[in-house]
């Protein structure tokens, strides 16, 4: 392997989130030292992933099949769609195993600073899905930020004519959270969303 190949590998790995040039160099050295056990399998796995992974045409999830297993699973509740910003959010929801409906990945949030407008998000696909008879509720699970909630309100407006129930995730105290350590915003949101017990 010529030095330029090593440099190229370092440069590419340094572009990954969480890695800088220093950690990329360590990773490359580790890969070279474990060529058979790590480098070649990783290279094959990357090849396969690049070739097979595709975006689900229904929900926007990433998988090797289209439609993805969640959309294709007849045991999932098709009457509820949970709208998330990114695939990472879908994975987070799936980890909880608390939601058995289907998803819709918007692909981001409205962000004028980053030049992201409604046309850049997968909203038309959501409106089309919500218009189907089967769908009864759409849960907006966008971030509790100004951009996230602006997007949620925009999506909610667009779904206005679909005749579905529109709900949003609650904002407030996280499990294990102590009041003393919470920021003012979370506390005031939790107070506003208080419930009878």
């Amino acid at each position: 392997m010529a030095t330029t190949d090593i440099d190229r590998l370092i440069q590419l790995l340094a572009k990954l989130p969480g890695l800088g040039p220093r950690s990329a160099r360590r990773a490359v050295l580790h890969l070279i030292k474990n060529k058979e056990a790590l480098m070649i399998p990783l290279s094959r796995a990357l090849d396969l992933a690049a070739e097979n992974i595709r975006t689900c045409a229904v929900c926007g999830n990433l998988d090797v099949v289209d439609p993805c297993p969640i959309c294709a699973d007849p045991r999932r509740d098709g009457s509820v769609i949970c709208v998330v910003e990114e695939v990472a959010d879908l994975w987070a929801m799936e980890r909880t195993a608390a939601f058995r409906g289907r998803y819709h990945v918007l692909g981001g949030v409205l962000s004028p600073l980053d030049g992201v407008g409604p046309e850049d998000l997968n909203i038309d696909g959501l409106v089309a899905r919500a218009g189907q008879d089967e769908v009864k509720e759409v849960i907006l699970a966008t971030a509790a930020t100004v951009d996230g909630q602006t997007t949620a309100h925009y999506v909610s407006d667009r779904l206005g004519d679909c005749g579905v129930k529109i709900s949003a995730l609650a904002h407030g105290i996280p499990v294990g959270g102590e009041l003393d350590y919470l920021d003012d915003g979370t506390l005031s949101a939790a107070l506003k969303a208080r419930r009878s017990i």
Partner: protein
Amino acid sequence: MNWTDEGIVLSARKHGEHSVIVNLLTAEHGRHAGLVRGGAGKRAQGLYQAGNGVRATWRARLEDHLGNYTCELTRAVAAEWLDDPLRLAGLSAACAVAEAALPEREPHPGLYRRLIAFIDGLGDADWLEAYVRWERDLLTDMGFGLDLSACAATGALEELAYVSPRSGRAVSLSGGADYRDKLFALPAFLLDDPAAAASNESGTAIADGLRLTGHFLEQYAFGHHRSGVPPARTRLVARVKAMHTAHTISGG
């Protein structure tokens, strides 16, 4: 260089993986940007939401450097209005307009106080009128103030009903009768003396006010911007229109 000031978060743009470039409207240093290391982290993200009040310390080696901010939350405003589409749109629009219109590092203490007053009054029933007044004040602070003291055509002090799109001066009901299609309607709440307004105030006063300030902002503040009117303001105008349409349909 080192200073500490009160400020309102106008925007936070991600810079690299962990940092954000935060734009604040500060009390004494005007609109001022700075880098916040670790600002993109989960703990800090809630702090750098548009509309939040902070106590910021800015440090840089030279005055013309971007510099680093260290901020402490003083008022968590954004979280309060996340569930209210119209008020959230108003808060976002005010911050976006201030960011797009105001020059960097030029103190506007009066405008800062008025933005604080607008944010404090977001819970009031007449907050939309306050928003339009805030945009009028922004134009005035930038040197493009509307002259609503007397009729530009007749000099009359009463029955002011229109504003000229060219001069930004008020026109009375009789003075503008022949040109009413070319003039902007002047909502009474924009006048210091509402009694001077014509009695033709319609239910579209807020939309009229937004159209009026929007025209002059577009002409003087955003005309030289590649991106034009901030999308947040466009969304607020669309929401106000939709609200008015719904109100009309329901016969309110």
